[in-house]
């Protein structure tokens, strides 16, 4: 399991969203990613794979949804709840 500070994870996450998901809009930690259509279900799969690889956390299939992954803040909260960041 890789150890990473919350700030480093946020930077990597933003970099992933910009480079891999092509999100060029103003991206804040409260920008809705899924409900605004910036990420589709395929993007969610790749985001989950990225988060698992970056944090060493296993994310259950049932958790991959807009309820947990709609904003960077939600993602960080979810990972903190699972002990991943």
């Amino acid at each position, binding site marked *: 399991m890789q150890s990473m500070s919350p700030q480093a994870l946020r930077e990597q996450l933003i970099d992933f969203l910009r480079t891999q998901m*092509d999100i*060029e809009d103003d991206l804040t930690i409260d920008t809705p990613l899924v409900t605004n*259509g910036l990420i*589709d*279900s*395929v993007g969610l*799969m*790749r985001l*989950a*794979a990225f988060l698992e*690889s970056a944090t060493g956390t296993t994310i259950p*299939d*049932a958790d*991959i949804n807009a309820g947990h992954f709609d904003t960077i803040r939600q993602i960080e909260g979810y990972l903190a709840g699972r002990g991943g960041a």
Partner: protein
Amino acid sequence: MLPGLFAALALAPLYWLVVPARWRRDVLSGASLCALGLYDARLVPLLVAVTLALGGALHVIVASDGRRRGALGAATVALLVALFVWNKQAGQALGVLPSQSGVVFLGISFLVLKATGVVLDCARGTLRDTPLRDLLAWLVFLPTYPSGPMETFAHFRGQASTWDRRRALGGLERILLGLVKALVFAHYLGAWIDPIVAAPEAASPALLLLALYALALRFYFDLAGYSDLAIGLAALYGYDIAENFDRPFAARNLAQLWQRWHMTLTGWLRTYVFTPLTRALMRRSGAAGDRLAVAAGLLATLLLIGLWHGLRWNFVVYGLLQAAAVIWVSVFARDAGRRLLAPGLVRWWRTSRIGYALSVWLTVTFFSLTGIFILADVMPALRYLRAMCGL
């Protein structure tokens, strides 16, 4: 359909005046079974038997542990799939049109998907409590039984049938909207399209193209109209049911369109097919193979959407065409755009109104052209497309 709808409308005041709150769910189960029995008497013993068998299987699955739980879940799903295949195949043997793939028992396709969902939830340990009374109410709930929307067990079970004047009035509006969509728009579009599809050689290429756009609209009005009726009727009896359509023809690509079309079905497939399959493949292939994993997950999902319509080659072709386009959009289009087009052009396409309008037009056109494979077998569909191209 109309007599049943009018009976449900007429009985609603009686339901709210007479039935005590604690009996409402059971009364609705009984009334749903009675109505389905009037349509086809065989449905009553079948639905009761399926519910009892499912309840028993879920009880055993939840009580089991580890590998045994998974094996029991897989065996139960296999039995449900067998019921689905038999119902479709036997229905097709009755010689109905490809567009009406035919069933022996009404509503079995939705019943099987719903039941499979709760079996998988119990096998994964995310659902433990499945009382028979609630299972029966959920499976036979008349507004959604014949054609959805496919309400999840957890959402349905969490609701109590309570009177809400605003919801009931909204329900009446939805029923009216659904009647207009299904019985006026879908009906008249169908009446115009069917003769053209039956004899494409007699029509001009432009008319054949126009008929395919009309066909996509007909599918929408038909499915969305029946969804409106189901949502409206459920609201009248105190239930909030999931929405099934979200402006699909405003989607800027086919992946988005499928996320907005028949959303409870595509949501089910995303939860139980696409997500677990894609993630399993991703874990096996690592980061290098994630695109291939996503493509394989999309292929399986879209192929199942095709086969959902019936076990015929035209539906296989339909599923493969949708899969090819969605895989292109979701997996390859961004990189291709970056490599082949100037960055300014890509940005313009993604952000300008003209780019959006052209994207929507391309998406709707693809969806409309491939829709012929829902309405006709492979060879007649190809004949239609040839005639449309003037060949």
